[in-house]
């Protein structure tokens, strides 16, 4: 039995065969794989997004009464219409860029996404969204399993994490996705100059190619060096990218700029990961103040996504790109004593791209806090899911990535999928 790369990462090792492919210098390999140039950018809002402050049912009387200090007044919400149940919805006032994208018909909100018996733990919740398996949230990620279906050999740059680590979502058996948070650091350095640099690189490459079966932990570390050495020349090309717009000078904005550069330079990546944190807003959310913490989160999100959208539009790549946003859970409906919100259940997903049929999908919760309210759970304290998040994944796998969602997700979730394409 071959225990593979990522099972090894999470599961520990007793017996293990190095079965992941050695990375090769194959410049157009990744792009040849899959069925097209289509990219997926997974956008993770880390900490549990209070989506009731992002997509606001501003006319619901319980919204205001249950959030006496943090409710956003109807007059301040950026109105975007009503959902099919007739609930009027508005965006957080700082999301003017997202409203522009929505008005262009390229942004879909999918309300009340989640799953039954939602975990309130950040770590378990993130694992569930990453593996698409609420029962046993272990092992590889849903996109890792997708990457594993691509023909061999799989180019390491097929995936690209802009975070400093590899998220579980991208953990795969047959390929070790690189994490490349910045281009500048992703280069070979040497204490010497001239031919010595090449001698050193040759030697480092040979040392990294030692993948002993009887020392899987050493094989794993060496495989990460190997993936770096095999990809750094292509990644360096991205450093020459000149964007058509100015991105915000923060980590999120610069990560999106790098992704646009990788797309324009055609390095072959199909799946990108980008994240932005701070969403665990237990205290002082202050969504109504310009410098309040939730407003700052919305500013970072809005300004980064708008720059990315505009850049891709200018580069003619918007139709090849899908941004899919999620967070590990939504938050409690009642605000707590600290003008914040505790861990809750269902939340909102967003899909953005040239191929997206924009609009408001699903129905908003009714926030009346009674135990018999079918749109809520936990005695009326949290939002209950309506659309299984795996149905959204199924739609993305089948209709965007050209994969087979039934085999990748282990069951058929197509029936409940929103028609976002």
């Amino acid at each position, binding site marked *: 039995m071959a225990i593979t790369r990522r099972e090894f990462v999470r599961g520990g090792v007793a017996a293990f065969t190095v079965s992941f492919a050695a990375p090769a210098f194959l410049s157009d390999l990744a792009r040849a794989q899959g069925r097209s140039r289509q990219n997926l950018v997974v956008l993770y809002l880390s900490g549990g997004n209070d989506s009731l402050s992002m997509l606001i049912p501003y006319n619901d009387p319980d919204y205001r009464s249950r959030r006496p200090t943090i409710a956003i007044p109807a007059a301040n919400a950026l109105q975007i219409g009503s959902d099919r149940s007739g609930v009027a919805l508005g965006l957080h006032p700082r999301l003017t860029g997202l409203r522009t994208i929505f008005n262009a018909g390229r942004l879909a909100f999918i309300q009340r996404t989640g799953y039954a018996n939602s975990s309130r733990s950040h770590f378990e919740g993130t694992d569930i969204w990453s593996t698409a398996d609420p029962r046993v949230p272990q092992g590889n990620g849903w996109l890792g399993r997708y990457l594993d279906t691509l023909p061999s050999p799989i180019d390491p740059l097929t995936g690209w994490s802009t975070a400093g680590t590899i998220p579980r979502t991208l953990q795969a058996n047959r390929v070790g996705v690189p994490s490349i948070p910045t281009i500048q*650091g992703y280069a070979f350095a040497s*204490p010497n100059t001239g031919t010595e640099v090449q001698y050193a690189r040759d030697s480092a490459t040979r040392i*990294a190619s030692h993948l002993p079966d009887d*020392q899987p932990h050493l094989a794993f570390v060496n495989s990460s060096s190997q993936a770096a050495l095999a990809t750094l020349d292509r990644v360096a090309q991205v450093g020459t990218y000149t964007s058509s717009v100015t991105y915000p000078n923060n980590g999120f904005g610069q990560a999106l700029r790098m992704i646009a550069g990788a797309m324009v330079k055609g390095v072959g990546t199909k799946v990108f990961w980008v994240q932005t*944190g701070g969403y665990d807003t237990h*205290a002082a959310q202050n969504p109504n103040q310009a410098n309040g913490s939730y407003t700052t989160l919305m500013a970072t999100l809005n300004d980064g996504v708008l720059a990315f959208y505009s850049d891709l539009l200018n580069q003619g790549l918007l139709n090849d790109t899908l941004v899919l946003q999620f967070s590990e859970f939504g938050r409690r409906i009642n605000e707590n004593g600290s003008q914040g919100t505790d*861990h809750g259940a269902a939340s909102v997903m967003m899909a953005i791209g040239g191929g997206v049929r924009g609009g408001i999908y699903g129905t908003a919760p009714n926030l009346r806090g009674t135990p018999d309210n079918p749109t809520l759970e936990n005695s009326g304290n949290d939002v209950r899911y309506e659309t299984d998040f795996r149905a959204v994944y199924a739609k993305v796998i089948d209709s965007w990535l050209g994969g087979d969602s039934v085999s990748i997700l282990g069951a058929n979730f197509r029936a409940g999928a929103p028609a976002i394409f």
Partner: protein
Amino acid sequence: MPAGSPTMQQRRDPVERERVRHGEHVIEHLLRRAGFGAGQDEIDDYLELGFAAAVQQLLNYERVPDDVDQLIGSPGYVAVTARGQFLPRTVINDSRQRWLFRMIHSRRPLQEKMALFWHNHFATAYTKIAGALGAEEGARYMAAKPTEDPNQVRGQIELFRQYAVGNFRDLLLAVAKDTAMLVWLDGRTNIKGRPQENFARELMELFTMGVDTFAETDVYAGARVFTGWNLARPSNAYYTFSYVAAQHDTTAKEFTFPIYSNGSKVIPARSADAGMQDGVDLINAVAGHPATGPRLARKLYQYFISEVSDPDAGLIASLANTYYRSGFEMKPVLQQLFTSPQFVAAQNRYARYSWPAEFVARSIKEIGWVGFSVNDALGPMANMGQQLFEPPDVAGWDLAANWFSSGAMLTRMNFASQLATNQRFNLRDIARGGRSSPDALVSLMLDRLTAAPFAREPYQALLDYARAGTAWTGSDAQLLVKAAGLAHLIVGSGDYQLV
């Protein structure tokens, strides 16, 4: 068959054979695990003591003077870089530099190693404290020493040093009252009628019992237990823990697990004035919960013994037993761990993935430091995935193989290059002992850098590097190039990342 052992038995590499013959390998192993590695002088000192006495010296460090901070800025030690004054009490980058300095030069290495363990266990990030209280106050509550603070503020890392090998229950109680923690998990805003769940949840899920050992209702009850555990600001001079009786929820709290030794699961209703006892009762209960001892034992096993094989069930049970029997004391647990047969077993050598802090401190100790500033390690460490005082979330860093994304590994390789470049003259001087041949130089560098034994092919790759280019003369000019080049390749190798 556990990973690693065939290579250990064959010992292809002559340098390794020599080290084993002298018992150096066990001392080096001990110092990599209970500390941050060692230069040759330190290895010699501990070799003289022998393994058993070395363990005692590392554990009973109270006998060793805590004078390391006075050495900062002295010649002969790694440098720090100050912007104006060096202010580790109020400038977080200076706090980081001071901690790295201590990892490299402290004569109480286990104290620093356990402080790092607790920092990951009770993972608190500076940014949130600074966001709430301001940058200088943020650094203060993370890193100030009471002796240097006008109000004797004890920063969180000093708490971890104080209780490094101390009583875990006492540490939990101190953490529950720690200013940085009260900001980090929002305890400062936890008041009756509006309970704040953040601390109570992580107390059970992360600090003690672990996920799936409690119910959501326990979180709600736990939040009410800690209502009124807030902050005060005497004379507007500093923030400190304050039990605000008027904000405490005095009603009874029911849990799904026993709180008291008689099996009762209910913390009784108490008057507001007596209500602080609720939190003490809950902390006693979670420290003594049957899941806590084994969970701590597993974390310590992975930190000190092995991350590549499943923890030995017998040893875990035995360590947990020691934990409960001693009344939650960590020193006897660690004593038992370091003297266990598993600690020195051949298959557990080089069976951990070094944390970036371990990698950086060890490489500086082994390559050399004169003229190098720890400030130049801070950026690389962030890119390796570990910025001190800034864990990614309350669960701490993703450990073991998770450190080794390709980007993080490349950063380690490039740090090896940066350090070797900085230390090239020092390395050349060391390398003169190996000038007779490329083989002699490779052997000397491997010995100096205490890497895991290199297998034949990677060893050959090092040798070919040493031979490449102009014919071997062993001149100083050649050593200047090749010693730095080899240090870069060895410290940047996969083998060196394992400790």
